[in-house]
């Protein structure tokens, strides 16, 4: 059996959705759920503020290993998933620029493929070692998450 396509990478390059989608689409695929996040220049919710840019860094070899782990977890929970792409862009990224992409393909849209992509981005934000520093008009600050991994994660 041909292994199912699984892509995971940390990159400084622009995220190419079409290229990734082509790589995770099988002849049996009929649906892809794609989540992408971008730099928000103006934040209205919670603590309203403006962002000039975000600077991302990663512990690259561990981050790529943890992305593979996220993909493995997706396949354990949703065995209908065909292809998976998980890409995090790092470096200095300005508002409206895509920073992360999770895409899952499946035969049909009612297979759990939306939930699988949602799980992928939620899990990336918990265990993949990437950080961002926010630069605003008034200064700069590292953004810290709040998830503490448990043994085995």
């Amino acid at each position: 059996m041909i292994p199912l396509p699984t892509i995971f990478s940390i990159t400084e390059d622009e995220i190419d959705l079409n290229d990734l989608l082509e790589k995770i689409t099988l002849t049996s695929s009929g649906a892809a759920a794609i989540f992408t996040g971008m730099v928000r220049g103006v934040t209205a919710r919670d603590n309203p503020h403006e962002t000039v840019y975000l600077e991302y860094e990663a512990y690259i070899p561990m981050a790529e290993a943890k992305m593979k782990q996220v993909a493995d977890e997706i396949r354990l929970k949703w065995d209908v998933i065909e292809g998976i792409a998980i890409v995090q862009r790092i470096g200095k990224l300005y508002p409206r620029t895509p920073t992360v992409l999770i895409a899952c393909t499946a035969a049909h849209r009612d297979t759990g493929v939306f939930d699988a992509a949602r799980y992928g981005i939620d899990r990336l934000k918990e265990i993949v070692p990437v950080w961002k520093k926010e630069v605003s008009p008034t200064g700069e600050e590292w953004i810290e998450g709040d998830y503490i991994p448990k043994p085995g994660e």
Partner: protein
Amino acid sequence: MNKIKLLFFATIRDRAGTKQMDLEIPDNLTIQELKDKLSSDYPKMAQSMKSVLMTINREYAFDEQIVPQNAEIGMFPPVSGG
């Protein structure tokens, strides 16, 4: 003695003032003991130690674990990718 490599990221890197450091530590030190040693040797890092996440050879590590020989130890705050 155990020669380890420490890698610092984000706020921890800022406080340590460097991205990485080679260190000789006693054999069979636990992660908690390593944190205590760093706090006393590098007082600037002490305030980071409560919330720091630690890794051993690219897997999350916990206070009671022993630091293996020639380990690569990562130290960083809770992640904020996406």
